[in-house]
């Protein structure tokens, strides 16, 4: 009665694609783009879609860490503040000898990772609920921002940032390329390494994970550190794209990152999901935002339309599977 390969590990079937949230979200993005392109001339132009991807890259980068954290059973409410700290901070750490700006960027990324580590420390060792820990961290960072806001920026622009913000490689914006590379790495780590498996373990059942020898504390620290890092990276990118950072630049990315994660099919309860869904989730969000912008209606109606669209797309992309 030994199981053959097929009964033990059934062959992949095309039909199962239709139950895959990530794939469904991709379909929906495509659908929205096509419909919008017909409804609003100019919306579907190559340049515009490319621009949307560039915007999605920022959300997408923030959402890498957010996806990790959510899969591991937590949530990170400090990503918006970290994006701001990073975008405002790069010019402040610029050194005179650092002509490329690489040092400043690396220093800021290290700082962002450090902030994430602190989050992880609180969650793992002080057993503070992630929402509380990261919310408190965001508040704390606001204090830091008051200190550094308006600090005279020596040079907001450095070559590395300018390149990130403006360069196109074979027509593809550097930001999108950065996003692609980091996404590939993120996906690989999540699905092809023991570390990734630990995240899924942690989110589904931390107690059983601990009893199975998963070092829950260290994994938690690492997860929040990754979230800090990707938020920091997003801050650097957004700084490049805007030419200048300002206090508050990261604010929109908190809810956007969470929405992208959940729209992409990752369970907010932790333990299941994939960054593969978050990617189209992020694109979907910027697309809807752009769509709402070009609709001529009062602010109230636009807000209602935006909410209704999200709800509608959520209905299409599928339901939370029953748990427990």
């Amino acid at each position, binding site marked *: 009665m030994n199981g053959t390969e097929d009964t033990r590990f059934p062959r992949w079937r095309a039909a199962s694609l239709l139950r895959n949230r990530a794939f469904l979200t991709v379909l929906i993005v495509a659908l929205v783009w096509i419909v919008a392109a017909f409804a609003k001339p100019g919306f579907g132009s190559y340049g515009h879609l490319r621009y949307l991807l560039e915007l999605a890259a920022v959300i997408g980068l923030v959402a890498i860490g957010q996806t990790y954290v959510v899969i591991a059973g937590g949530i990170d409410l400090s990503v918006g503040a970290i994006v701001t700290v990073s975008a405002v901070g790069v010019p402040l750490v610029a050194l005179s000898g650092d002509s490329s700006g690489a040092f400043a960027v690396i220093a800021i990324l290290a700082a962002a990772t450090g902030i994430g580590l602190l989050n992880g420390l609180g969650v793992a060792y002080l057993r503070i609920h992630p929402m509380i820990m990261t919310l408190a961290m965001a508040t704390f960072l606001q204090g830091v921002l008051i200190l550094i806001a*308006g600090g*005279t920026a020596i040079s907001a622009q450095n070559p590395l940032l300018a390149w990130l913000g403006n360069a196109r490689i074979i027509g593809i914006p550097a930001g999108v390329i950065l996003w692609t590379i980091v996404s590939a790495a993120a996906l690989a780590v999540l699905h092809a390494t023991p570390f990734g498996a630990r995240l899924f373990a942690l989110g589904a059942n931390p107690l059983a994970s601990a009893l199975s020898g998963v070092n829950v504390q260290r994994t938690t620290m690492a997860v929040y550190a990754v979230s800090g890092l990707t938020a920091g990276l997003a801050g650097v990118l957004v700084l490049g794209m805007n030419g200048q*950072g*300002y206090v508050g*630049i990261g604010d*929109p990315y908190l809810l956007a990152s969470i929405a992208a994660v959940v729209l992409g099919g990752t369970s907010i309860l932790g333990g299941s999901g994939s960054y593969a869904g978050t990617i189209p989730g992020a694109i979907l969000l910027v697309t809807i935002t752009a769509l709402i912008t070009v609709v*001529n209606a009062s602010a109230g109606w636009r807000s209602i339309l935006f909410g209704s669209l999200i709800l509608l797309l959520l209905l299409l992309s599928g339901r939370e599977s029953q748990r427990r």
Partner: protein
Amino acid sequence: SEADAAAKCIKGDRKAPYTLGWANIYSVPTWMKQTEGTIAAEVEELKKQGLVDKLVITDAQGDANVQIQQIQSMIDADVDAILLIAGSSTAPARVIADACAKGIAIINFDSLVDTDQVTAKINTDSNEWGDTAAKWLINELGGKGKILVLNGPAGISVSDDRRKGANAALAANPGIEILAETNTAYNVAPAQEAVTSLLFAHPEIDGILSLGGALSAGAILAMDKQGRPMVPITGENARQFLELWKDKSLKSWATMQPNWLGGFAAYTAVQALEGKDVPAFVKVPLPVIDNSNIDGYLARAKDFPADGYIFSPYDEKLFGELLAAK
């Protein structure tokens, strides 16, 4: 004694040196930080004169409810004056009335409250802002053209007032067609995103009526990235915008909400407490930046944060003149 007290809320029973309270709505944005700078500078000045001994600052973190709570605390602590940037144009009305009844001088500036239970309101005129901006743009376009209108956040009085101010001029010029309007926070990134989408949707745009903050800078960055020709655009004194203006040789016009409104409010509070008569509403004339004086502003740029606002110069003499003007 009461007879000496000229200004509203002032009972004349408070003696120098005074304690001033600044009930800020949100101290994180750079504009606020610069404003705080002018208040602190003015308070230093007043301390030297022996008129003020303490400045307490609260930060409501953007929450109008928390601001009410903090104003209540200021009343409880019996400060002598409250400087107020209101988080909502209606919400603090009742708590302010309480403060006023206690003889606390209330100087409301920048974001105003719809109540007259204050010692003085200090502000530029948002309606006039919208009106002047619209007229400049219409004039620039020769009364004909397709434009975008960029507004601040929805549901906020200031952005609503500026937009309303523009109405009359726009209605009088049927040749001006509004292609689309947006509401975004007064920030570069959201404005840039919105304008980019609008540029794709509307291939022909002749002008942009931008009503404040960093919206104009966002719009210009959006056009620049797409390689679109620059169009006439209105704006504010954000350093980034002024630099882009010069850089791209724009046709522009800008005005400002001077940060020294804060310092002025502190000055006014002390004047009122000292028994001087202060007008219930001090209308600060809108400084105008155009090609004639932009270089003067940019020359001082390095004194201001990169994401800050280059405001016109001020001194106590100017404050005195503004208070004297009826």
